[in-house]
């Protein structure tokens, strides 16, 4: 198998996932009194998703042509830091995360989005999504350039503080994403070779911050309660969404109700096009659909591992690991939430959930993964 074949397989998997996403965002957007005004098609999420899909494919193939090594430190010294893309991205992310707290649009009592009016359409942009991928890139690049210095405790503390800053800015408005970003950042750092006992130092701090975050918000306590208590006792209150999710999945049975024939999407299941889209897939395509989605992610994981193993470049290997980890772990967490194996938090299903920011950035990551596959020699 050549690197190009593997890259094409990755492309196939990612495009299939995105196509599935477009179909189900469309299906889940169904409303009884739907009357489309096609001159304003961009205001309908289901039509917007089609546009995102097409743009994402361009992004995917553009990044696959780009040499991933350019993302690393191309120069030595201070010049290397200034001209590194990942550093710029991290700085941009931090600035945007600060700005969104003041300028962001409020949705469901949280400011996570920029609403940028651009002529007839409004562009929604979620900086926390950008911050996630910036950190992945940055930690990979920095770990490689620091080489053995990563075992230095002072360096470790500095990196931890940077991660802490980004995560701290995210946690103000989005607890779930913050936990996720903190986790993958530390895991990549660990994989890069940081000393294991160094990790013991930020853990108490993180634990304290998260405990405070949970108990300071009644909504989060409710979510934890909803996870622990049996689902029928709280079906009308905090557990409503998760119970509707389980109803949707379960009533799909083995073969599903058929595409477009689900019921939960008609206002019963909140967030049916975004975080809970998997429940709609399970309802309409049944267990077979579930298997298909899980199989796609497993294959992505499998070929990701092959890419990591084939790559003989440290940066490429670490970056491939970071990308595969971020995508598949996010999928696992999302599916775990939807099937009530984990408490509810707002995390999208990669490539499938509605939303432009996450789709573009995931496509970018997948494109980089393809680029790594193409440029590694067969071992």
């Amino acid at each position: 198998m050549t690197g190009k074949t593997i890259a094409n397989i990755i492309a196939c998997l990612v495009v299939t996932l995105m196509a599935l996403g477009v179909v189900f965002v469309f299906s889940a957007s169904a409303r009884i009194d739907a009357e489309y005004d096609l001159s304003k098609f961009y205001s309908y999420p289901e039509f917007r998703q089609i546009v995102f899909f097409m743009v994402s494919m361009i992004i995917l193939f553009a990044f696959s042509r780009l040499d991933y090594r350019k993302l690393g430190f191309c120069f030595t010294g201070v010049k290397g830091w200034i001209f590194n893309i990942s550093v710029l991205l991290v700085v941009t992310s931090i600035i945007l995360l600060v700005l969104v707290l003041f300028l962001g649009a409020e949705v469901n009592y949280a400011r996570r989005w920029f609403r940028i009016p651009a002529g007839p359409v409004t562009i929604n942009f979620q900086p926390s999504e950008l911050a996630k991928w910036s950190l992945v890139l940055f930690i990979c690049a920095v770990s490689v350039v620091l080489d053995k210095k990563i075992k230095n405790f002072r360096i470790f503390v500095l990196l931890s503080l940077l991660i802490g800053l980004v995560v701290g800015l995210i946690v103000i408005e989005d607890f779930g994403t913050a936990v996720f970003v903190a986790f993958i950042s530390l895991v990549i750092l660990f994989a890069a070779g940081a000393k294991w006992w160094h990790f013991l130092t930020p853990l108490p701090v993180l634990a304290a911050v998260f405990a405070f975050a949970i108990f300071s918000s009644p909504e989060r306590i409710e979510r934890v309660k909803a996870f622990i208590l049996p689902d029928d006792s709280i079906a009308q209150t905090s557990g409503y969404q998760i119970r509707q999710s389980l109803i949707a999945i379960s009533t799909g049975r083995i073969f599903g109700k058929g595409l477009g024939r689900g019921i939960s999407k008609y206002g019963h299941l909140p967030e049916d096009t975004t975080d809970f889209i998997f429940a709609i897939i399970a309802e309409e395509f049944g267990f077979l659909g579930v298997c298909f989605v899980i199989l796609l992610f497993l294959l992505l994981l499998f070929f990701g591992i092959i890419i990591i193993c084939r790559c003989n470049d440290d940066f490429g290997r670490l970056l491939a690991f970071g990308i595969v980890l971020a995508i598949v772990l996010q999928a696992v967490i999302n599916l775990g939430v939807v099937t009530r194996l984990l408490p509810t938090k707002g995390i999208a299903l990669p490539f499938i959930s509605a939303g432009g920011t996450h789709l573009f950035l995931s496509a970018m990551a997948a494109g980089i993964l393809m680029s790594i596959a193409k440029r590694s020699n067969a071992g």
Partner: protein
Amino acid sequence: MNMRNKTALLLLLIIAAALLGIGVRCFYLQYYKADYYHEASVKSQKSSFFERPRRGSILDCRGRTLAASYKVDTVFAEARIINDLKKTTESLAAIIDMDPVEISKLILTARNPGYAPIVTDAKLTDEQRNQIRRIRGIGIESRWKRIYPLSNAAAQVVGFIGTDEHGLAGIEQQYNKTLAGSVGQSSFFSDAARRPVRLEQCQSFAQDGADIILTLDATIQQFTHKALLKQFQEYEAESAVATVLDPCTGAVLSMVSLPDFNPADLSGADANSLGNHLLSDPYEPGSIFKPIVAAWAVETNSIDPNETIFCEDGHYRGKGFGSIGEYRQGFGNLKISEIIAHSSNIGMAKIGQKMGTQKLYEGVTLFGFGQKTGIDLPGEEYGFIRKPDKWTGYSVARVPFGHEVLVTAIQMARAFCILANDGRVVNPHLVKAIVSDTGKKLKITEPMPTGGFVVSKNTARWIIRQAMREVVTDGTGKKAALDKWEVWGKTGTANIADRTSGGYDEENYVASFIGGAPAQRPAVVVLVSIRKPNKKLSKGYTGGSVAAPVAAEILKNTLNYLEI
């Protein structure tokens, strides 16, 4: 650099295992828990729609409505799915012209979070319906409302229905199944605002109820009600009944029981007003029983119509039957017809004694006493006739003037119909025909086969044209007389047995008149019984003074109306 390759790969394999675990979890949910969550989905995602059938109408013999159903709308709120109360109430208020504050109050104070009625019994236009349907959390429910155009006048006959549309009295109860039709049901999946997504299955379509056409005539019913009510109020009676029957067929033309009630609004109704006293209230008939016994005595040749009987000048006493007196003055020799005309108790006692227990019992039974008449209304009583082996010397001397027997008014009316129908048996009935919602005749009441004679034509004609005609011309029933027609009949002033002391109460009577017109060819039989007219008013309490004028008024109006 010392990248931890193996650790990283191990972590990715753990994630792969987690993905497989989610697959297993989904299989558990979709295979083993599917039925459990299906139940839950039915509760939260499915709605049922019941199509209530139109309840059949009840019509009089000329097709006039006695009871009918029409559609009214109830606008209700499902409080638990309303997010923005202010906006919801304001948009609703604009459509139905109501104060939004008032609506909010109704929604907030509703006990049922899924159903807060806001406007009931309204008639909405199609435009209003469409506008209301678009508001989330507000629904329209249509239901049938029952109307009774005759209101109190035919209350006990027509009956009424409960909130579940189940007939609870009268024809409404007797023919509930026929009138009710069947409910149509369909269930569908709905969105969160309970609007239908997809019709799952239509289990059944609504089948409208059948219409019932009665023999009752609304006009005669109103005459009867009006005449009886006037007397009932004037004499401050406890209860009163009146009925008009066609003696040839047994068809009931009117039937009134007082006190009455409004079938559309039962507040204030009690057992006394709800009951149909014609059927449910057996009483000792008193003198109105005499013509029956006299006819039977003639029929069995126990006496000759031209015979004279010595009436003991008002004091008849002997061993084995005690002492019998008259209501007022005593009589000497009376012909049989004069015994009826002047209502002599002693004369009747002697006729009874001549007949003997066995014959008398047979006659009373043949005229239908002690049995239900089988009229198509609920709540009919048997009355009570003692078995002949329990009869004593007292009984045989007292049954002939209507003591020691318990009869219902409808039994009395039927017995007189038999006499008026030349001795042929008739059965009182109310239903003339039943017609399905598609116009198909489901049932037509056929006239009784004219087989059995209780008494011969001659006997029947003699008792009507001779004996009971004399009651009105010369006897106790003069107040029932009319110029235009030859009225016949019999008065009765029955003591009410006092259950506690075992004797008769001298204050409480049942004043009755039963008769008909014309004597040559009776077209109608009328019964009027007024229970416990207030004696203290000193206006009179006898059948001749209280009941006979009512019967006369009913007869006059009815015969004029029927153009006889």
